[in-house]
């Protein structure tokens, strides 16, 4: 089912949570809504579900205007951040709930068979008789997903699906959710504040800030060509340097970078820690090392330029560096934004 948001607005009291958001989600697509807290991502998800009503604009499911369809009849599967499993029902009863309350009457045996099928899908065979309190967080997450899928939703909506889990379970479930999505082909929209999660899982990432979409695209597009300083900063560690643009070139100290289409004047340059290179001799930006952090994957160096700007970058673990050392930093790759 294709979903279209058309100039959607939502205000809580005086706080404008969502400001004029338009978004198209293709049928079968897996889309991430990514943004810091307060960016309106959960509100958008809840409006698509019908748990929150839009103050303005329209939400279309296919060609049908779903804006005023109550959540009960909207046919969405919603997975809550804290799962919201019914604590007084077993896992099987939780999964069967949607089928039991449905207007479409089903045979008891048919419901039981479907529950078994879903338990198999989420790899929880044999746990149907347990209560939510008797299973782990990762298992609860999968029960919540099975329960949402049981009603054959047109759209699957997940609110911070892995937020409450520890890192290992999280990575595993992420891969598994992708597999389920590929298997079922259901249009899926999920909310996260974790860039890695969004980039790993989604076909398309929608980045939000202060209630508006700041950029959207495939993980490759948003990573390789971030549209703004905010997106660059939000997607991961980045070093920020003051620069001066003159005639299509950005100058940072003695280093110059291509800056096509940026008007002359003050600018800022962003570079990932892995895009900076350290050398004892010039040319480059003069800096002195303040700290060296050793990590399993390499060596992170913190430095300060002669201009007083803080930098973080990675060097080969074999490279001999120590605090107080003077040297030069060059930029292998960087993004330039006008200020």
């Amino acid at each position, binding site marked *: 089912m294709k979903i279209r948001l058309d100039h959607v607005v939502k205000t809580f009291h005086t706080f404008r949570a969502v400001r004029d958001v338009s978004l198209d989600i293709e049928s079968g697509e897996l889309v991430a809504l990514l943004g810091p807290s307060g960016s309106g991502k959960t509100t958008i998800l809840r409006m698509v*579900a*019908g*748990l929150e009503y839009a103050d303005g604009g329209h939400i279309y499911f296919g060609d049908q205007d779903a804006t005023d369809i*109550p*959540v*009960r*009849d909207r046919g*969405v*599967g*919603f997975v*809550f951040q*804290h799962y*919201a*499993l*019914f*604590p*007084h029902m077993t896992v099987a009863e939780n999964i069967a*709930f*949607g089928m039991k*309350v*449905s*207007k479409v009457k089903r045979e008891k045996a048919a419901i039981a068979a479907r529950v078994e099928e879903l338990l198999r899908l989420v790899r929880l065979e044999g746990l149907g008789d347990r*209560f*939510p*309190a*008797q*299973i*782990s*967080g*990762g*298992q609860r997450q999968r029960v919540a997903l099975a*329960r*949402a899928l*049981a*009603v054959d939703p047109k759209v699957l909506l997940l609110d911070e699906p892995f937020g409450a889990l520890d890192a290992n*379970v999280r990575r595993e479930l992420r891969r598994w959710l992708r597999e389920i999505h590929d298997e079922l082909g259901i249009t899926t929209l999920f909310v996260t504040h974790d860039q890695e999660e969004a980039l790993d899982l989604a076909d398309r990432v929608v980045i939000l800030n202060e209630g508006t979409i700041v950029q959207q695209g495939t993980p490759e597009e948003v990573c390789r060509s971030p549209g703004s300083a905010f997106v660059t900063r939000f997607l991961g560690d980045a070093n920020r340097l003051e620069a001066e643009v003159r005639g299509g070139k950005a100058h940072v100290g003695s280093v110059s970078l291509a800056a096509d289409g940026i008007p002359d004047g003050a600018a800022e340059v962003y570079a990932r820690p892995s895009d900076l290179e350290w050398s004892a001799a010039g040319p480059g930006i003069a800096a002195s090392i303040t700290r060296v952090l050793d990590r399993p994957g390499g060596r992170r160096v913190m430095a300060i330029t002669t201009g007083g700007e803080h930098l973080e970058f990675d060097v080969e673990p074999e490279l001999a560096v120590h605090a107080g050392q003077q040297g030069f930093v060059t930029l292998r790759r960087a993004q330039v934004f006008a200020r």
Partner: protein
Amino acid sequence: MSAVHTRRKPPRVGDQPLFRRLLIATVLILGALLILAPLIVIGFEAFSEGWRAYASTIAHPDTRHAIFLTVVTALVAVPVNTIFGVAAAWAITKFDFPGRRFLLVVIEIPFSISPIVAGVAYLFVYGLQGFFGPLLEAYEIKVLFALPGIVLASMFVTAPFVARELIPLMQAQGRDLEEAATSLGASGWRTFFSVTLPNIKWALLYGVVLCNARVMGEFGAVSVVSGNIRGQTNTLPLHIELLYHDYQAAGAFASASILAVIAVFTIIAKVALERQGAGRIRRPALAAGAAASTE
């Protein structure tokens, strides 16, 4: 070194033996004097003129009528207040609407007002010279000095009991479960009966038990609106006072013993419900959880 060995744990405030014994003794003596002794006296005095006198007091038509009236009042007031309490708690905790905080305050009013003030207020509203007085008289509806007045006054006093028990619990539970149920296609009633109610049932029963105890024991508000007509508008607490003023001490204590027995059953019910997790803010099933994790 030896000092370290003799003192196994660091001393806490008030941990000296003398201080501890003094505190425990104070509590025991005060508890005996203030609570236990009066209860024992009720038992003794009720039977001071023998079994026969006790039985005849209870069997007296006025006493029986007082018991009847008390039970009828409870049978009307408790269900009405239960429905009110559930509806109020549901509205306050699961929905946002203007005046939500105001409603919360209104529900609490009977707790902070002396019951006698409530009684007098009812007098002014439903009495002959009162607000609705002429209207009620025109239709010959008797509210005051009759059963409706007693029930109304009792309901006023006990209105907050159920709601007060449910609101903190339902606030802690949040709206997720209800939202999940509706997103799965459940109707409002279905959501209430199969999702909300099972998760609040113990707290609800706890509130009902407390509410019932208070309805049966209410004196102040009821004494103002009932008119104290023996054998007609006397509830059990009022009957006890009347007997006492008539110098029928044994009769008064015999009637009081009935209320005391109700109180004992209330406490047993309360303890049993607390074991089920009522009266505490938590989700019974989820709190027990994490330990059983298998992943």
